[in-house]
């Protein structure tokens, strides 16, 4: 290892590489305590050229490399699978390289966060449209593209962040550095369009979960932030689950370009109020589901018309409007104006200490989610015995359900479903049984959802492998992915293990 260390140190300088045990442990987890992988080395490169050199050496030495942005993967995607390999911490590559104000395109280093980028753009009256994932204050633009991220706001209007992609600079696993889109023409000075000059190769790196290359630069379309916006929250009537889906569908049928629409299930509202999460809703007599929308417009007149169209749809379903202030219960205002959109997904975590989310986020058609949610309730009942075991140790039964159900572009929603359980370290002891049950339940839940035909996007370690293990992939699709993986990464060093692409290393 030490000769390898020296070779790598020469590339990045000694300050940017570490094999210290504490540093390595600091990188051994993502968001979810039950998955861990301790790397051998952590490196913080500062350029594509450095990454290229590092990957070349990794190939020579057959060492796996995991790229890491914000580290917010809920499926263990930016830590090694197994205690091995090099973590490439790209967060120091976080500069804004160019803002083309006339063409409304910004070029950034891939490690910059959505929060930092939007703070910068704000000074120019611009924004990225889709604000990235729910973890946007920390997660990186590169990570967003790698996972088709949604959830951080604006996705009903702008869709997943990959819709705004103009161009990428990517380091391939064998070290070549490529630029996609308009940049494929050598003579193009700046990225301006994604679609052309041959096949859309940038899409290989969209949603690839980091298996095909390491993104170093990203160019995104940006937009003038509309001057006017309205945000309203409504209390749902009975059968809130089905009715919320109807509302979302109607919004699409009428072609209203809503910026955000989100639905909170009855369970989240009632449990949340019980645990003091929503002081503004404490006065509610009927603790039912909540739906809210945000809509933007370029003028007050247009805004008024759109608001009327939206309100008609929602009020026709016998929903009740909250007042305009946050204190009246208008969570939509907190979400949009106070940038709560980058915190809202944290609503069920920590209901009691150590309450950890075990996530199964996926995208589904609007008209499918009520049925899926009801099936999850069913799944929960079927696994009562396992849930009991955790209750016995921790005094609280895990909760199955979904956080906010978020409209994304066209007729889909992001279903932030899963179950909240506990970390295996509870009250002074490590309870292996909790970890075992969590993994067992997690796999069972994921398999249940796969069989509903849902689409996963952030797959990381556990989900990418599970889908292959339960034979959830259409065979030809998986073979194509494998073939391309072998072509681009012959030794399978990049994100080794995801989708069961191990190379010669059969560590698992």
């Amino acid at each position, binding site marked *: 290892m030490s000769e390898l260390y020296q070779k790598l140190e020469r590339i990045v300088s000694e300050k940017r590489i570490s094999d210290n045990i504490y540093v390595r442990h*600091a990188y051994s987890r993502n968001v979810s305590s039950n998955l861990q992988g301790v790397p051998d080395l952590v490196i913080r490169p500062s350029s594509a050229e450095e990454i290229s050199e590092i990957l070349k050496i990794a190939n020579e030495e057959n060492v796996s490399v995991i790229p890491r942005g914000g580290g917010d993967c809920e499926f263990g995607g930016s830590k090694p699978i197994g205690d091995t390999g090099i973590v490439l911490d790209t967060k120091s590559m976080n500069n804004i390289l160019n803002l083309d104000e006339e063409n409304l395109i910004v070029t950034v280093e891939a490690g910059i966060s959505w929060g*930092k980028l939007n703070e910068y753009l704000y000074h120019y009256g611009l924004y990225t449209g889709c604000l990235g994932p729910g973890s946007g204050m920390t997660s990186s633009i590169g990570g967003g593209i790698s996972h088709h991220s949604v959830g951080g706001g604006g996705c009903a209007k702008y869709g997943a962040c990959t819709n705004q992609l103009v161009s990428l600079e990517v380091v391939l696993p064998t070290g070549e550095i490529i630029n996609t889109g308009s940049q494929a023409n050598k003579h193009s000075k700046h990225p301006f369009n994604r679609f052309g000059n041959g096949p859309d190769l940038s899409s290989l790196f969209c949603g690839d979960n980091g298996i095909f290359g390491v993104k170093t630069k990203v160019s995104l379309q940006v937009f003038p932030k509309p001057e006017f916006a309205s945000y309203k929250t409504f209390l749902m009537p009975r059968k809130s689950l089905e009715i919320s889906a109807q509302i979302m569908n109607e919004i699409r049928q009428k072609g209203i370009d809503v910026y955000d629409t989100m639905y909170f299930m009855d369970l989240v509202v009632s449990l949340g109020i019980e645990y003091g999460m929503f002081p*503004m809703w404490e006065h509610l007599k009927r603790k039912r589901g909540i739906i809210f929308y945000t809509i933007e417009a370029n003028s007050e007149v247009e805004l008024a018309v759109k608001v009327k169209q939206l309100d008609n749809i929602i009020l026709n379903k016998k929903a009740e409007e909250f007042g305009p202030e946050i204190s009246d219960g208008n969570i939509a205002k907190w979400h949009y104006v106070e940038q709560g959109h980058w915190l809202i997904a944290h609503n069920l975590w920590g209901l009691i200490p150590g309450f950890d989310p075990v996530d199964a986020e996926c995208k589904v058609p609007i008209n499918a989610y009520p049925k899926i949610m009801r099936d999850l309730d069913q799944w929960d009942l079927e696994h009562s015995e396992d849930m009991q075991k955790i209750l016995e140790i921790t005094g609280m039964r895990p909760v199955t359900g979904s956080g906010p159900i978020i409209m994304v572009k066209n007729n889909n929603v992001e279903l932030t479903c899963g179950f909240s359980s506990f970390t295996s370290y509870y009250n002074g002891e490590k309870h292996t049984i909790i970890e075992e049950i969590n993994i067992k339940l997690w796999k069972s839940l994921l398999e249940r959802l796969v069989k509903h035909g849902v689409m996963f996007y952030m797959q990381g370690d556990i989900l990418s492998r599970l889908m292959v293990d339960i034979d959830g992939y259409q065979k030809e699709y998986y073979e194509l992915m494998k073939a391309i993986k072998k072509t681009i990464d012959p030794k399978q060093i990049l994100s080794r293990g995801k989708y069961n692409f191990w190379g010669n290393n059969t560590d698992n």
Partner: protein
Amino acid sequence: MSQLKNLKKEWKAIMSCMGCGDCGYAIRPAVGRYLTCPVKEAMEEEGFEIYFSRGRMNVLKSILEGQIPLSKELAEWVYQCSECGNCTEVCHMSQNPYIVLPTCNWIDHVKVWEALRKDLIEAGFAPLDRHNDLIKYMNDDKKKNPYGEERNKKFEWIKEFPEIKDKGELMFFGGCTMPLRQVDTLRSMMKILRAANKEIAMTNEELCCGSIALRIGDEKSISAVIKQNIELFKEKGAKTLFTACAGCYRTWKKDYPELLGEELPFEVKHITEILIELLNNNQIPFKEIEQEDVKVTYHDPCHLGRHMNFYDIPREVISKIPGINLIEMKRTRNNAWCCGAGGGVKSQFPDLAIKISEERINEAIEAGALILTTSCPFCIGNLSDAYEKMDDSIKESIKVVDIIDLIASKL
């Protein structure tokens, strides 16, 4: 693992951390939040996860699970933290009273760091070398202050002010830093009190408040001090104890009752509380100001601001000074950026402390201020040290001045 006695008490906090990373990267301009960890930002070159809260929480998870041990090496990492509390301020905090994200109920990051430090000391991996010196000086009967100065030097300045009585209802707690390092500011304070005809008392039997020991995690060194200090002032008949040091203020007002498990027999105030009273009663005679208003910005010391929720009174004080226009920096109040001196950073990692202060000074200049003022001798000391090392062009744009000196200069 009896080694982890204190850390284990904080298991709920550690296991509630789900690794979102906002403790390093939070940006929400709508609520005035621009980044979180001063150490992480100062160490941007090295910038590994272990330099901020999330990475450390991950390490602690591994430690609780028995994967890796405590060690001196670990101590070297974790003491690079001023315990400013910005991470706690951000962690799942909606910054709106109507939304309470549950996790914020369980994680007080600073408590975790304090517990870890206690365990490191118990296990013998801490204090680190310079901290060790500080504790030694504090415990040394001939010194009894972290600066290693001879014991009575702290009280020499009192001789210049014979009107200060030995006992009374309003007593001043001098602390160690001001008498030993910023005694001119104390003279300014007396100038103000004289001009306002305010009588105070002070005793030369007071002991160092012990804040240093608390931040370093040495519980033993502080336990003796607390009782002695409280008894002393009780016996002197104090009804109100006030101090000009934010560190002493926080230690007296918050830590002492917590450690003791009971209320203090007198109230504790900060100098600005005394000053605001005087200002409100027009007891401070200012001279006529002819020139234009000078832009002044106020730096919230962590010990006063985030730790004690004490934001408004110093601002009221500044607003009442004639010829001053109070403006705010980008990161203010509960989002304020630490100066970098606290938590033992100044003594053990002086370069780091200065680098952090440089950022704060630049922020003040960016806000357009000509004077950066605050009410904490640690902040003044560290900001001034950083200031000395900066370019001449910086020195021409701004000055660093304690509130007390600011007022005194206008008399």
